[in-house]
């Protein structure tokens, strides 16, 4: 058959590989084109749902996803802060906090009211040991609710730690590093909030560029 003869040629392999690569890229580009709006929408829905979880019902009536401000942390990284308002009055803020756990960063959303008391914490991303460190997820345990109502000074800074370190928060049997990471992330988040409270509620929503330092 003609195809057999053609296959003997050296160029056949190269052309074949090229065509397969081209076909695969084309298929992926097409799939990306058709899915990326839906994926973005689904991720926005996820974020919205997580934001709702760290705020009490009826706490805010604005669209938090559209009322954001970007601030620089001490280490230079950017934090996106979602502001909760009831009517025109600012009620609180939600932002991401992270700290290194047993395996990679533990990322959580932290909701804080105007006085700096915790409204809620939810871990949204982590790679901790399944069945052991993953009790920090709300789906797998109530531990994370222990932060509700706490703030800097309640408990005091030394006591804002897991029990093993002389603090008030439980660790898990066999897993201290993971809860320690979450406690540290939350404490640092509260400190960040204390240091940037003025900027967070400054009038202009969503400045296009960050880096407006304090004074």
């Amino acid at each position, binding site marked *: 058959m003609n*195809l057999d003869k053609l*296959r003997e040629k050296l160029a*056949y*392999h190269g052309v*074949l*590989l090229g065509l*397969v*690569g081209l076909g*695969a890229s084309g*298929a*992926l580009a097409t*799939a*990306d084109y*058709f*899915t*990326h709006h*839906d*994926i973005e929408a*689904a991720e926005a*829905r*996820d974020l919205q749902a997580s934001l709702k979880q760290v705020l009490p019902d009826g706490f805010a009536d604005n669209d938090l996803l559209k009322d954001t401000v970007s601030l620089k942390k001490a280490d230079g990284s950017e934090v996106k802060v979602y502001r909760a308002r009831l009517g025109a009055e600012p009620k609180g803020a939600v932002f991401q906090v992270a700290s290194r756990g047993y395996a990679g960063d533990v990322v959580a959303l932290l909701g804080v009211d105007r006085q700096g008391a915790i409204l809620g914490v939810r871990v949204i991303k982590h790679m901790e*040991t*399944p*069945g*052991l460190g993953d009790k920090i997820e709300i*789906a*797998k345990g109530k531990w994370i609710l222990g932060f509700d109502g706490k703030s800097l000074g309640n408990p005091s800074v030394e006591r804002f730690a897991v029990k093993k370190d002389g603090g008030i928060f439980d660790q898990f*049997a*066999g897993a201290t590093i993971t809860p320690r990471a979450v406690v540290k992330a939350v404490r640092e988040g509260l400190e960040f909030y204390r240091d940037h409270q003025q900027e967070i509620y400054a009038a202009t929503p969503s400045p296009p560029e960050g880096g407006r330092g304090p004074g």
Partner: protein
Amino acid sequence: MNQETRDIWADGLWRNNVVFAQILGMCPTMAVTTSGTNGLGMGLATTAVLVVSNALVSSVRNVVSVQVRIPVYIVLIAALVTLVDLSLNAWMHDLYKVLGMYIALIVANCAVLGRAEAFAAKRPIVASALDGLAMGLGFTLALTVIGLVRELIGAGTLFSQASLLLGPAFSFMEIQAIKNYGGALLMILPPGGFAVLGLLLAAKQWWERRQAGRPVPVADGPACCTV
């Protein structure tokens, strides 16, 4: 059911089982079998990819030359897995949040490439798709069993969080098998995976030897890459 179909099923589910006979796909096997539910989820996702990748490879088997077949299969499989990943993320987002961690790992499962090379490259489309289904279900069975043993000894539960994977109707599968159990951390960590797999392999060999009354022949899987 004719002889060929019977052979495909027997090979996939038991005789030439991806995990218990070919010892392929060890990366996902060790990584996700910390619970029965995780094993089941990974197995089902892999099965779906195996069926389509086998059919795809079989359909281009007359065009692809022997010299470049491996890169062609890898590109096809990787593209396929990415397509599954994108469409799940876009249109079945709740399922994706549960299965998401497994999907990308499927590319690293050389059982998929192994079936392309050992079966689909030589056989017609329907038989290849069936082989993918049988091998995938055999893989699912192995992962679920390993996961259940590790979960039972490690945490004292069976199919915990099955309702997250399969829907609330399946919450009856979640069983607290041992009450007030402190847990055996070793079984959840990677060494437990190797220990359970080794013991299950030994049990399978023992059983087959006993059935046949003679030493068992060494399995004939493609030894392309045991990852």
